[in-house]
Structure formats: structure tokens, C-alpha cells
């Protein structure tokens, strides 16, 4: 699903640099990425998703070399193939729950918002335990509920790859387990790949593989 070779990346501002010689994630694999803050875990997710482009090296996601795609094509690829979950939920406060879940279908013409999609959004919300709150504004939800809305948004297009950046970082233990259960169950049922950045070592047992980013961090610090 993900294949990275000799990836080098540096932000135009600041001294941070990242070097990943080799990294591969199989299709359907559940991988946790751990490592110290500032080591580039989120940057790696951004590179896998095509949000950032490396200065050199290859990033192949779902058999597509993202480095060779233009920005518009990368966005189209992302919205159809990758579900992103963020630590801060990143919901739009002026939309209600259902509209937040449907957002990907409203901001890219490559996804078609049909009646079936709306129905799937309502079903997803029901499965997440927020089915009775679809018409509420997201500001009226608890933290756990907000993250479940964000997860619904990521899952709606049924992407083969889920990238979650500390998805449980702002949640209490109960919600933490619940959200992770949802992500894992979805990945298992659909055969999707799940890559999660986390600081919470208690959750690592839920993943098939753990990548310690420290190895890349050490390499990164050697990048000239």
C-alpha cells in the first residue's frame, strides 16, 4: 500500500529535515508510528498523503507515485483514496454533524454526492453512536463525539488507506478505546490499511506493527 524509498524532505522555512531510506506498509496492515515530538511523524503522514512533496525520493501510495502528480491530481487522489483523522478533529463549526461528515463530497467534484452517499453518512453516524445528533451543530458535541464525526468524515468515501495523526490525543480513556475500536474494525472489515501516529503506548497492542520514528529522526539529524 505504501512504499517509500530514499525520501528526503526539508521545509522551506526552519531547519527541520527528514530522511527515510526505506519504508513499506502492506495493504490491510495496521501500523502504529511512535517517536519523540518534532521527529517528523506528522510530516511523514503528509508525504504519504501527498499533502507535501519530497525534494527527492519516491513515495508510492496505493500504487501511485505521488511525487509525479500535480497538486490537483494529488488532491483528487487523496480525497478518493485516503481518509485522514486529526488530533484536533478539524471540524467546520458552521456545519452540523451530517454536513461535516459529507464535507469531502462538497469540496471536490471527483466525488459525487448522491442519495446513497447521504444514506451511508447517516448509517455511519448511527454506527458511531451519534445517529441522533446528525442535525446538531458540532459545537454542541463532546470531545469524543467530535472525534467520531471526524472519523465518519474520513470513512465516508470508503478509502483503502486511513492515516490518523494522534486520533486519541485529546480523548478520555473511554472515548480513546471507542475511537480506536472504530478505526480498527473499519480497517478489518474493509481490508483497509491503517497508519496511526500515537504517543500512547497502551494502544500499541492494537496494531500489527510499530515503527519507532527514532531511527528516521537520527538519520534526519544527519541530513546536511
Amino acid at each position, binding site marked *: 500500500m505504501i512504499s517509500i524509498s530514499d525520501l528526503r524532505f526539508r521545509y522551506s522555512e526552519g531547519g527541520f529535515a527528514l530522511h527515510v531510506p526505506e519504508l513499506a506498509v502492506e495493504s490491510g496492515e495496521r501500523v502504529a508510528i511512535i517517536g519523540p515530538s518534532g521527529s517528523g511523524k506528522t510530516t511523514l503522514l503528509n508525504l504519504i498523503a501527498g499533502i507535501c512533496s519530497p525534494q527527492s525520493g519516491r513515495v508510492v501510495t496505493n500504487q501511485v507515485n505521488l511525487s509525479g502528480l500535480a497538486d490537483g491530481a494529488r488532491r483528487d487522489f487523496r480525497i478518493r483514496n485516503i481518509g485522514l483523522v486529526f488530533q484536533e478533529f478539524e471540524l467546520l463549526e*458552521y*456545519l452540523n454533524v451530517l*454536513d461535516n461528515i459529507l464535507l469531502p463530497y462538497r469540496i471536490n467534484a471527483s466525488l459525487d454526492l448522491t442519495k446513497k452517499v447521504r444514506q451511508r453518512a447517516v448509517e455511519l453516524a448511527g454506527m458511531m453512536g451519534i445517529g441522533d445528533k446528525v442535525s446538531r451543530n458540532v459545537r454542541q458535541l463532546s470531545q469524543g463525539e467530535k472525534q467520531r464525526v471526524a472519523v465518519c468524515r474520513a470513512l465516508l468515501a470508503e478509502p483503502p488507506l486511513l492515516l490518523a495523526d494522534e486520533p486519541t490525543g485529546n480523548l478520555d480513556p473511554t472515548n480513546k478505546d471507542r475511537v480506536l475500536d472504530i478505526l480498527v474494525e473499519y480497517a478489518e472489515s474493509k481490508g483497509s490499511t491503517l497508519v496511526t501516529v500515537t504517543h500512547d503506548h497502551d494502544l500499541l497492542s492494537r496494531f500489527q506493527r510499530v515503527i519507532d520514528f527514532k531511527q528516521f529522526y537520527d538519520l534526519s539529524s544527519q541530513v546536511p
Partner: protein
Amino acid sequence: MKDTLYLAWRYLAYNRIKTAILVGSLTLITFLPVGLNVIVGQSAKELTARSEATPLLVGAKGSPLELALNSLYFESETPALTTYSEAVRIEEAGLAQPIPLYVRFRSRQHPIVGTTLEYLDFRGLEIASGRRMAVLGECVLGSRVAASMGVGAGDTVVSSPESVFDLAGVYPLKMHVVGVLKPSYTADDGAIFVGLKTAWVIQGLVHGHQDMAAPEAASGVLKREGDTITANASVVQYNEITPDNIDSFHFHGGMSGYPISAIIAVPRDQKSGTILMGRYEADDEISQIVQPATVMNELLGTILTIREFVVAALLLVAIATLSTAALVFLLSLRLRRREIDTMSKIGGSRLSIGALLVSEIVAVLLAGVLLAGLLTVLTAQFGEGLIRALLLG
């Protein structure tokens, strides 16, 4: 596009106070110059219609504007007074029909217009109820006066003293309302019409009092010299004209010397009008003749110049408002940076995100312009009534 517009609508609806302020500001700044233009246009139409319907005005030398405003709209201060002999002079010249006006006194805030029945014919004023004034002390009310005072035929109205502290001046006269005019949507609706002689009664030039030859008036007599009786202040003067006392009302001196404020001169034809105007050209002439349309056009010229200044000022305000609106949009973009980033990260296309932001701005601008358009239509529709209420009182 439908989805973009939906998101834009949700954003604007959620931030409804900010949206309302922006739309309100844009509405006002669009409407003010356009609305001002409509109002000024309608005011001009209103003012010129009346002045154009009044061919010539004759009055004592002084401000032509004051003469026109007082005679056409019963507004402004009473102009320098002329005398009834001026009307006789026009009549005798045979060049025009003179309609004398004496616009000086008021009943509360309503002007009392002393004139002849020809004035009602000249203005095409019709009686809605009752009849025209026929006898001394009678009056006919304009429709707005009747409505605001709540009086009609059979009631009375009282003239107001010119000055509360002028004890030796004009005494109030109780006048009998004999008719109410149909609305004409002109200044006539706000006036009380009386015969010229009644206006002179209000002034005290024509007056009635108890018969000094009668025995009961003896205590008020100071001296008798032939037909001349000198009375003291205890003599009862009548402040209402009734069938019982009407015969006691009399003139002192000749009527030709009595004051009037203006004469509407209706020339027999254009040539007669030109000749009549020529007769007032002499240097030693103590009266003036004016064409109200010319006077009002000069006034309108001034108003239009002022309007240009106001519009120029409004344009500057518009630039300031639009700059502020642009700043608000830019600050809003900065505040929404994270939201825009999120949409980009999950795969929103640049076109969709850009269209979302642009459609919000366009929606606000459009709403402002549409509301301004609506206000302009309403102004054009109902502004005339508003102008009448404001300008014509």
C-alpha cells in the same frame, strides 16, 4: 457549484451578525446615493409641478424666493406685504386675472390662506363635504388639516395669535368650518382657506363690536363728537362672527389699502403675460412680478449642486466602507486559515475552496445591492408621499 453555494450559505447563516453588518453597510452605501438621487428627483418634480402651474406672482419688492415659497407652499416667512390695490391694478389693466393671497396667520401649525373663491377654481380644488366659504368668518379646510385636527363641516377652528406676548396685537378669531376639500396631494391639503375679508378680520382691520349708540354701551363711551364716538377699552369686540353680530363688522378706511401677501396673476394669453411683466420693470416700481417656475428652478439648481457635494462625500464614504469590508474579508480569511488548510488536506480542490470563499463575498455584495435596489424601488414608490409629508408638512 450547488455544494459550494450550500457551504457558503451555511457559513453566512452561522455568522449571521457579521453577515448582517456587512450586508447592512453595503446596502446603505449603495442605497444612499441612488436613493438621494430618487428623492431629489421626486422633490424637484413636486416643486416644479406646483410652480409651473402658477404662471405669475406679484408682490412687494423683496425676496422672490420668499414670495414664491409663501404663495405656492404657504411656507417660509410672510414676504413684504403689498396692498389690495395691486390686485385692482392688474384687474383694471385687463391683462390677467388677479387672485389675491394673504398668507400670514395660522391656526396651530396650519396656515390660514385668505383668498377669493377663484383660487379654489384655479387650483381645481373640489369640495369633499359641505360647501365653499360664502360669509365672513367661514372657512374651508384642506383634507390633511381636517384629518389632523379631527374637525369637519359644522365645527370651528380658532386662529392663533401671532405672538403670545403681543396683547395689543391680533386676537384669535373662531371660524366656522363649512367645508372640507378633497385631497389634492399639494400644499393646499395642509391649509385653511378663508375669504380675504375674514383674513383682515383676523388681523383686526375689519372688526365688529357692540353698538356704541346703544344705552348698554354708554359706560364705554369717552366722548361723542357728531357721528364720531370715542370708546374706552371696555368695549366688547367680537371674536366670533355670528348671524347676530355680522352686521356690526365694518372696515376702517378703503379696502384698496388693505394688506395682502401676493397676487397670482393668470394672464389672458402669453402676450398679455409678457406685457404685464414689462409693466413691473420700471425702476420706481414698488412691486415685483416673478415667474415661480424660474424662481424654483434656481432653488433646485442650488439643491442639485448640494446633492452633487453630498454624492461626492458619499462616494468617499463608500470607498472607506468597501475598504473596511475588504479588510473584514481578509481578516476572515486569516481566521479561517485552519479551516482552509483542513479542506486542502482532506483533498478539497483549489477551485472548490476558492469558489466557496468567493461565493461568500459575492453573496454578501449581491445581498447588499439587491436590498439597496429594493429600498430604491420602495423610495420611488412611496417617496412621493414621504416628500409631501416632509416638505409640505
